[in-house]
């Protein structure tokens, strides 16, 4: 078992293990912090997949941005001191449905993942993906890039409006 393999299993365990904690923990703060480790594990997987730029983006945006946002959300919508932190699950029938549906979907996806002849080809050696991604974003994906900025603008205007307390 080489190092890559070991690293893979480590990051995979990190991702899935904390992922499980995220969705199962009764304490919302535990969940939020577990999410951090999940994202970290994913970033590790990206590295293993030669996506260095993405790994860094993952850490910066997710951990630095989204997760902070979420923790803010937790703070603003939960009485930290109260019992509320321990958020329950929904009703048992629905929970049963959730388990079933999730398991069915997971099984199906795994069957598909392992059984399919994917479009695979040997990867050329790449040193840094940042340049390639940058070129892509400013050439082929220029429109998408610009549209994304527009989207962010809309999101800012909208979120700001909704989150404002008074008109």
């Amino acid at each position, binding site marked *: 078992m080489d190092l*890559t*393999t070991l690293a*893979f299993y480590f990051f995979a365990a990190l*991702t899935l293990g904390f*992922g499980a904690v*995220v*969705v199962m923990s009764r304490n*919302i703060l535990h*969940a*939020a912090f577990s*999410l951090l480790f*999940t994202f970290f594990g*994913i970033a590790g*997987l*990206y590295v293993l*997949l*030669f*996506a260095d730029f*993405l790994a860094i*983006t993952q850490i910066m*945006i*997710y951990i630095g941005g*989204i997760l902070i*946002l*979420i923790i803010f*959300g937790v703070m*603003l*919508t*939960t009485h930290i001191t109260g019992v*509320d932190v321990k*958020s329950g*699950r929904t009703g048992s029938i*629905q929970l049963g449905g*959730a*388990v079933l*549906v*999730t*398991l069915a*979907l*997971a099984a199906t*996806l*795994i069957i598909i*993942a*392992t059984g399919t002849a*994917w*479009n*695979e*080809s040997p*990867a*050329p050696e790449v040193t840094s*993906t940042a340049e390639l*991604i940058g070129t*892509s974003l400013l050439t082929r*994906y220029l429109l998408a890039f610009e549209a*994304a900025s527009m989207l962010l603008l809309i*999101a800012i205007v*909208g*979120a700001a409006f*909704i*989150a404002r307390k008074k008109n």
Partner: protein
Amino acid sequence: MEIGLSHYLIISALLFSLGLYGVISRKHAVMVLMGLELILNAANINFVAFARFGGMNMDGQVAAVFVIILAAAEAAVALAILLNIYQHFKHVNLDEVDQMKE
């Protein structure tokens, strides 16, 4: 055993399912949002893995970049809306926000 594409895909599938489970089963809306993030991350693992094993196809990584951007925007808007819900209900338990039905 060589770590191949399917390993990543299985991780992604499991993460996707975990995310869905979170969305479905958690009462607290913020936890639901966390589940959503897991879903999007699962898709991203797919994109990146396919990019890697499909001959370093950068399209996959670019797609993942966009997904991350959108996830951020979505999270922001969703949290803003949650705050608004909190104003009304004094909680964000999704199963109790069901005034409109049938």
